[in-house]
């Protein structure tokens, strides 16, 4: 018997630790690239102010990076500690990108990040530049392999279920790596990281411009960040569209929940809901308002293709559930008797096996063999309902993310325009807006994560393994222990992180850490003589 409370607590723990980890990751992905860009300018122009910029933003990056690394440790092991059935079921294919990530990307990033921080006087200028580029490459390659793994959960390609080993076995490396979902998701996520970093740099620079400190430093940082931000936010929107189309083709329930489509759409008039109040229990909107003629071309990129609604998806699922129950029963028989007849029955219904597993939690004693003919319709209804993710959460997290994305584009565009004309300081409102926008891209990426992973429910491996079956069979007390521990530890981390971030951002590029006495001499970057006194 699977304890539903333990599954829920395991989900809560994974969501908390992953969302928390993801607070720090996008900034890391983007900041490494921004550092590479700044050091490139230092390399080309030789002006010390760009070295100072690389070092100052590098310090803030370091404060963020430490927690990113620390919380990443949890993620690497949490599949094993809390999702044993999942790990057993897909480890053969899902574990591989994680292992390659460590070997190919994280080693690169972590080894060179030490040299990037400590190697300024030990490395030649081109060598240090190369090191910074390798850090940027390493952090983004990390994201690539992690999102390839995540892509497999969304669209399991490149592996087949093997009834002899009771797990999915890896069959095609290129299918896994070039999966449509993984591709679009990697680029979307990596570039969203650039947006986070650009807003972070722009916002802190805006603070200096507002307080008229470090103006030369801030103007340059602002300019570079704003230009990155404009291109990156355009790219994020484009890739978001590509991901939406991939979901339309591969994960119909997710797209239906994202757009709040209860009844299959009637192209081309179907309105795109701007705001709505979806009610999951009643399976209808309490209220909705939308723009006509927008939804169909937006999602399908055509004017005539309908998008299947939730009610249709549920009734389509029922025959699959019936076949799935057959598949699981046959698999059980085959596992205990190795009977070739059972195997043949299983093979016939194999592609619906996941739906049989999904029905298990509603069966008497969670045993599909005990379902009577009288109970079957109720169980089919319940299971069919279960195939749809929570619409309210999906609908709104998607909308918040999209709205923020477009808002960032506007902020970056104005910022870049006034920065290129050197008129920033005449627009304190824009500067204030940028400053207060620093946390928003991170918030948007969190909602993006919720859209992607809540929309995948009720599956851990879409169509194959339900979340309910994936968790480890822990006792309740174990889960309470770890959940409380993570909550305490992570809250104290974020307090320390914010404290240091504010402290060092306020101190600014000229502020030395408290232990080192301020050095006499020119403080204005670019002033003569500065180059003779390297910053360290």
């Amino acid at each position: 018997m699977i304890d539903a409370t333990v599954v829920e607590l395991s989900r809560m723990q994974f969501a908390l630790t992953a969302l928390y980890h993801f607070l720090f990751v996008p900034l890391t992905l983007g900041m490494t690239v921004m550092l590479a860009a700044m050091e490139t300018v230092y390399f080309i122009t030789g002006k010390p102010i760009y070295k100072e910029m690389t070092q100052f933003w590098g310090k803030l990056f370091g404060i963020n990076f430490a927690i990113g690394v620390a919380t990443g440790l949890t993620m690497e092991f949490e599949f094993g500690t809390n999702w044993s059935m999942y790990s057993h079921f897909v480890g053969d294919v899902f574990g591989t990108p994680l292992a390659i990530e460590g070997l190919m990307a994280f080693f690169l990033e972590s080894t060179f990040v030490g040299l990037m921080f400590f190697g300024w006087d030990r490395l030649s200028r081109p060598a240090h530049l190369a090191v910074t580029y390798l850090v940027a490459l390493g952090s983004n390659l990390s994201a690539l392999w992690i999102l390839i793994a995540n892509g497999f959960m969304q669209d399991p390609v490149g592996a087949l279920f093997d009834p002899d080993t009771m797990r999915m076995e890896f069959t095609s490396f290129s299918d896994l790596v070039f999966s449509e979902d993984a591709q679009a998701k990697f680029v979307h996520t990596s570039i969203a990281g650039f947006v986070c970093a650009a807003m972070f740099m722009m916002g802190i620079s805006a603070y200096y411009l507002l307080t008229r400190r470090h103006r030369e430093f801030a103007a340059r940082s602002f300019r570079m960040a704003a230009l990155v931000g404009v291109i990156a936010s355009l790219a994020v929107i484009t890739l978001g569209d590509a991901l939406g189309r991939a979901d339309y083709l591969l994960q119909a329930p997710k797209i239906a929940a994202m757009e709040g489509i209860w009844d299959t759409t009637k192209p081309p008039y179907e309105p795109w809901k701007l705001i709505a109040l979806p009610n999951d229990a009643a399976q209808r909107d309490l209220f909705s308002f939308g723009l006509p003629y927008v939804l169909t071309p937006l999602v399908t990129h055509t004017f005539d293709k309908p998008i299947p609604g939730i009610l249709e998806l549920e009734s389509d699922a029922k025959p699959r559930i019936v076949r799935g129950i057959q598949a699981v029963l046959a698999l059980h028989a085959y596992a205990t008797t190795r009977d070739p007849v059972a195997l043949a029955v299983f093979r016939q219904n194999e592609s619906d096996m996941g739906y049989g597993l999904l029905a298990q939690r509603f069966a008497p004693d969670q045993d599909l063999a005990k379902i009577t003919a009288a109970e079957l319709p109720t169980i089919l209804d319940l299971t069919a309902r279960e195939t749809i993710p929570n619409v309210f959460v999906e609908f709104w997290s998607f909308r918040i993310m999209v709205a923020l994305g477009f808002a960032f584009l506007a902020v970056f565009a104005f910022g870049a325009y006034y920065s290129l004309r050197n008129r920033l300081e005449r627009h304190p409102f824009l500067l204030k807006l940028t400053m207060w926008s620093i946390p928003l891209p991170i918030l948007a990426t969190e909602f993006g994560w919720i859209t992607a992973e809540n929309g995948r429910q009720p599956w851990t491996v879409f169509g194959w393994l339900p979340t309910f079956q994936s968790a480890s069979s822990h006792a309740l007390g174990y889960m309470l222990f770890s959940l409380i521990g993570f909550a305490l530890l992570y809250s104290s981390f974020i307090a320390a992180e914010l404290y240091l971030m504010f402290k060092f951002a306020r101190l600014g590029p000229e502020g030395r850490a408290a232990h080192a006495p301020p050095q006499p001499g020119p403080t204005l970057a670019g002033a003569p003589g500065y180059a003779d006194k390297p910053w360290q």
Partner: protein
Amino acid sequence: METYVILKLIWTLLLGVLLVGLAVMVGMDMGVGTLLRFVGRSDAERRATLNAIGPHWDGNQVWFILGGGAIFAAFPTLYATSFSTFYVVMILLLFSMILRPVAFEYRSKVDARRWRGAWDWAFLISGAVPMIVFGAAIGNILEGVAFHFSWDGQYYQDQSFIWYLLNPFALLCGVMSLALAVYQGGAMLMMRTEAPIAGRARGFAMAGGWLAALLFAAGGFWVARLPGFVLTQPVDPGMPATPLVGSGVAMAVGAWLSNFYIAPLLWIAPGLGFFGMIVGPLALAARRPAWGWWLGALAWVGTIFTVGFAMFPFLMPSTTAPAQSLTVWNASGSAYNLSWMLAFTLVFAPAVVIYTGWAFRIMRGKVKTNAIAENEHSY
């Protein structure tokens, strides 16, 4: 021999290499963390101690992450079962491990006694606890773990976590692992710090090395009296990788030594271990820390391969359902997966070794106290 069997054997060997890499590189940093409060009496000394491994701890820690990922991919069932059965202990390990990156980055960024003092305690916890857990986990696996599988591949735990925490043999292994880590960390500190830190580190390291030798011997005698596991029927090594089918396994006192009697050449592993643990401290006494460091690495190679040779082909035997014990034959990944991973390892593992070596060469030399005050990014 068919390809699949060769792949399984290669990955078993690579698992050993990975554990050695983890033990040597992460263990060294853990040792430094454990020693921090004892070799550094003033704040300046503690900062020198931390900066001795400052540029490298992050890269070294990837061995730990790679360990998780590689076991996940190469031995999925082992990953799924071991971390879940050892849940509370694993979570303690994670709690202490995640303190460390934050401690490094944050400790010296605020100049306040209580702030730095608190992080120094974090270094002690995040150095000692993971090494004890690492050793204790190996000890627990030698004793056998209480678990079984249901038909669909879900594991069930048959024993309380208290046993895995408080179990004399496992604790002995844990303390031995900590002693070796202290040895390795001390040798590193001798290379990269000046007096008086280096001198204190030498004392702790020598004690650690010899204590490890003593515990290694005690552990050996203990294992001879421990119920080990043997295969009672021949197993097809090229079998589909699943423990659910079951194989003939029996428990017998002293069975872990049977491989050594079958192939006496295997005694070379414990021999190397003892050699490293006994001669290493002598090298430190003669103020040859580089020699001592490599002898420490040799001690780890000897220890981990001794355990591997004793247990082969078992990875994690079950006391409650011995037939479902995990072995290298029934818990590995598929042939296709193992081949791809091997291809990546052949390309990237040498690259990692080369650039890690380069990074150590660039940052070589002793850490100077005044250099720490000048460098903005010092820990």
